[in-house]
């Protein structure tokens, strides 16, 4: 039964009453621990309230304007008709992958094409995993994201129903990537809250490629929580492309936790959206971990993208890299708040962070705040932030080589973006996104 949010009451209360109405519709209703967590989460959400601009973490991003709308909360599985043809344009050429398709936050088994899997590997909906593999789900679910001080994560936890689930057991090399395609469909304005869980056990290797698209012009607000776990010596590559159009807003909270000698990499591409807020946290809890965060934002129209990242160095002897780039056109706004936190006794940390922005118009804005909070002395931490325009000398050089002004600009911007694109480890994905970026830049100047 869907519930429409009543905009006459305080936004927080709408969710609280919707929670009461749809009490039973939940992920794995039989699990006592998940049920208990949901109760606690809605309580916490009611106490915290929705984030406002008064809060330092939301200083530059006003969620109220996009969340305060009469959205429908689809609480039971009602699947609008989506066909293979509908999703075909969102495919990645030459990507031979295990495909999981989610429509409005729920796994669509008809459209999904998992194929053959190595033994022990599970790719399914979180809902199904909760029933079939409760041990794995309960071990990791809710373990890495902390909703005590995060209203949006609490809200997601309270309404948790479904999402993507990937499990790769110890020592397994998952050769083909997992392709997770999210589409929005239907005529209604929707507020959906998917919850994903990716578990890569000790020594396992996996690639997860997510893409977010929309088939509708209706307004949507997505409040996602993704939890990732990489065991000892594991390697998890995660990439996500946000391209849902001008009517889609979202808050995406990603928490990655990894153990000794493991590598966790996140590639994020924000290509369209109304208000997009990404909270990414990586916690390398073990020695010799490598944590990588890469992001590219192409701003157009009135798009507002806010990337908050935290690399939480709770353990000594780790390295982290972070590179975020923004190209802002029209009236778009980007916010970058990257934080590196080195705890006491987390010695010998090598943390690097860089944020570069190109602001192309007078109406575009960039707010950047690269933070370091360091309590250990034997560390090497640095951050850099730059903002500027296309290098005149570079442009001049290209003009002397016979390029038109527009071609030269496009080439310069492409080169600027390339540094982030180069960090994509999957060739098909790299070629695909490079093409999308190239087309976008070409369109911006013609």
């Amino acid at each position, binding site marked *: 039964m869907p519930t429409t949010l009543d905009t006459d009451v305080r936004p927080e209360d709408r969710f609280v009453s919707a929670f009461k109405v749809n009490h039973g519709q939940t992920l794995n209703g039989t699990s006592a621990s998940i049920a208990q967590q949901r109760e606690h989460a809605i309580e916490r959400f009611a106490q915290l309230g929705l984030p406002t601009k008064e809060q330092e973490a939301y200083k530059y991003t006003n969620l109220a304007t996009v969340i305060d709308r009469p959205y429908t909360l689809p609480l039971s599985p009602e699947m609008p008709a989506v066909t293979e043809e509908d999703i075909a344009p969102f495919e990645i050429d030459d990507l031979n992958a295990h495909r999981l398709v989610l429509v409005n936050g729920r796994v669509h088994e008809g459209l999904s094409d998992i194929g053959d899997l190595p033994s022990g590997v599970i790719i399914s909906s979180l809902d199904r995993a909760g029933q079939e593999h409760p041990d794995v789900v309960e071990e990791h679910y809710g373990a890495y994201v902390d909703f005590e001080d995060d209203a949006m994560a609490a809200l997601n936890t309270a309404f948790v129903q479904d999402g993507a689930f990937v499990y790769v057991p110890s020592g397994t090399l998952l050769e083909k990537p997992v392709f997770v395609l999210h589409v929005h469909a239907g005529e209604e304005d929707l507020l959906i809250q998917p919850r994903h869980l990716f578990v890569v056990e000790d020594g396992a290797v996996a690639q997860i490629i997510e893409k977010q698209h929309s088939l509708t012009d209706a307004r949507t607000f997505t409040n996602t929580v993704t939890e990732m776990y990489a065991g000892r010596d594991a390697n998890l590559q995660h990439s996500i492309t946000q391209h849902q159009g001008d009517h889609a807003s979202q808050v995406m909270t990603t928490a990655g936790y990894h153990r000794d000698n493991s590598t966790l990499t996140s590639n994020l591409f924000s290509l369209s959206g109304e208000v997009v807020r990404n909270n990414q946290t990586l916690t390398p809890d073990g020695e010799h971990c490598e944590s990588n965060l890469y992001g590219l934002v192409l701003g157009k129209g009135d798009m507002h993208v806010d990337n908050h990242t935290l690399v939480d160095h709770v353990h000594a002897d780790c390295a982290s890299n972070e590179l975020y780039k923004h190209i802002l056109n029209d009236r778009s706004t980007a916010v970058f708040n990257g934080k590196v936190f080195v705890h006491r006794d987390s010695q010998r940390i090598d943390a690097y962070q860089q944020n570069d*922005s190109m602001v192309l118009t007078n109406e575009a804005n960039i707010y950047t705040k690269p933070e370091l909070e360091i309590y250990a*002395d034997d560390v*090497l*931490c640095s951050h850099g932030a730059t903002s500027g325009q296309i290098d005149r000398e570079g442009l001049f050089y290209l003009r002397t080589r016979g390029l038109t002004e527009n071609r030269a600009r496009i080439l310069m911007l492409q080169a600027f973006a390339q540094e982030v694109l180069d960090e994509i480890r999957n060739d098909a994905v790299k070629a695909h996104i490079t093409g999308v970026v190239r087309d976008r830049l070409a369109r911006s100047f013609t």
Partner: protein
Amino acid sequence: MSQSETEYLQGKADEEYKHGWTTDIKTEKAPKGLSEDIVRYISNRKDEPEWLLEWRLKAFRHFKQRIESGEYPGWAHLDYEEPDFQDISYFSAPDQKAQYDSLDEVPDEILETFERLGIPLEEQKALTGVAVDAVMDSVSVATTFKEKLEEEGVLFMSFGEAAKEHPDIVRKHLGTVIPYTDNLYAALNSAVFSDGSFVYVPEGVDCPMELSTYFRINEQGTGQFERTLIVAEPDSYVSYLEGCTAPMRKENQLHAAVVELIAHEDAEIKYSTIQNWYPGDPDTGEGGVYNLVTKRGLCKGDNSKISWTQLETGSAVTQKYPSVILAGDDSVGEFYSVAFTKGHQQADTGTKMQHLGKNTKSTIISKGISADLADNSYRGLVKVSKNADNARNFSQCDSMLLGDQCGAHTYPYIEIGNPSAQVEHEATTSKVGEDQMFYCHSRGLGEEEALKLIVNGFCKEILAELPMEFAVEAKELLAIELEGSVG
């Protein structure tokens, strides 16, 4: 101040006393607490014009409103107890009594520090508060300086004097850069400021000497709520130094100063600060000074320049962000800072550069050194507004950690709204390099000497910005502070 004025002042004070409270006025100290009466009392004691009292009262009402709404600026990375504003005495008359009759009575360790800092004998006397007649020389030096300044038309006097003698200039500029509504402490200062310095440099004048509060030390006693106003008319230049390297023990724990600088067309103001106040008990951190200061400069005219240089080694808690509003086209703002914290000290300092005019430039170089249990944060804002074409900023914030129990943090805010802006920010945090130490050892330097050398190199570009005579002392001061930080 002539005798009659003093009498008049005293009379006024006594008058007020009748209506006010019951404390013995002879102590020259207002009773604890803050109220409109106290604000009136302060203004009265200082024989201020009516408009200034009105301004103070407005500020006080604003302060009260903020306090009543439960506001306290607790956003900085600082951990200290909120001061009880009703438990502070807001006025005490300058103490004319000498603390000592001669230098022989001054404790040896203070003299030793002076010796090492290379402070001249006469200044040592002035700083320790040796009886006035014993430092006749320095007073006469001050007088010579004053004459020379008067010749050039430079006004350099206490804020109180200026309010009376040049009310038009003071009134025109007071609170224009830092309105009393700016923040809680600016409101408090505006309501109860005791005294401070006033500098006015007329058009086309290069101030013939570095101005410092040094030689005014005996007529000072500006107390805990200092207010400084510097106005540089078109095409003028002034360099002002506040504080000194000598360790200063302050009576009051809370210090909330306000400094306003205004530079007109083609004018340049260089403001240097050396702060070495009591940092509190090294083992517990108790009793140290809270140094919560609002400093801001306005580059009002085209081609103007304001430069802040600071060396912060003292105080238990330091929170200050000397800022520049770059309103004039082609104006320049600079911020050079070394903040050294050790023991239980905490510092949250940095700057704000607001680019409004076209072709404006700003440079930020901040070095933070943290040892023992100290926390040292850089917090800064670079804002390029929509119409500030061709703005240029370079920021560099380096932190050095000298122990595994201290913290170093950077919170740079960068807000860009113009495509032609070129902004660069870089920050590093590291400890003293083992290879650097090794090299120094191999050249025969001991642990401590090596550390001094390396830290000195780390801070060199900042110290070089200080006026020459202070740069030497500042270097020594850092060396002294570093002692005992090896480990």
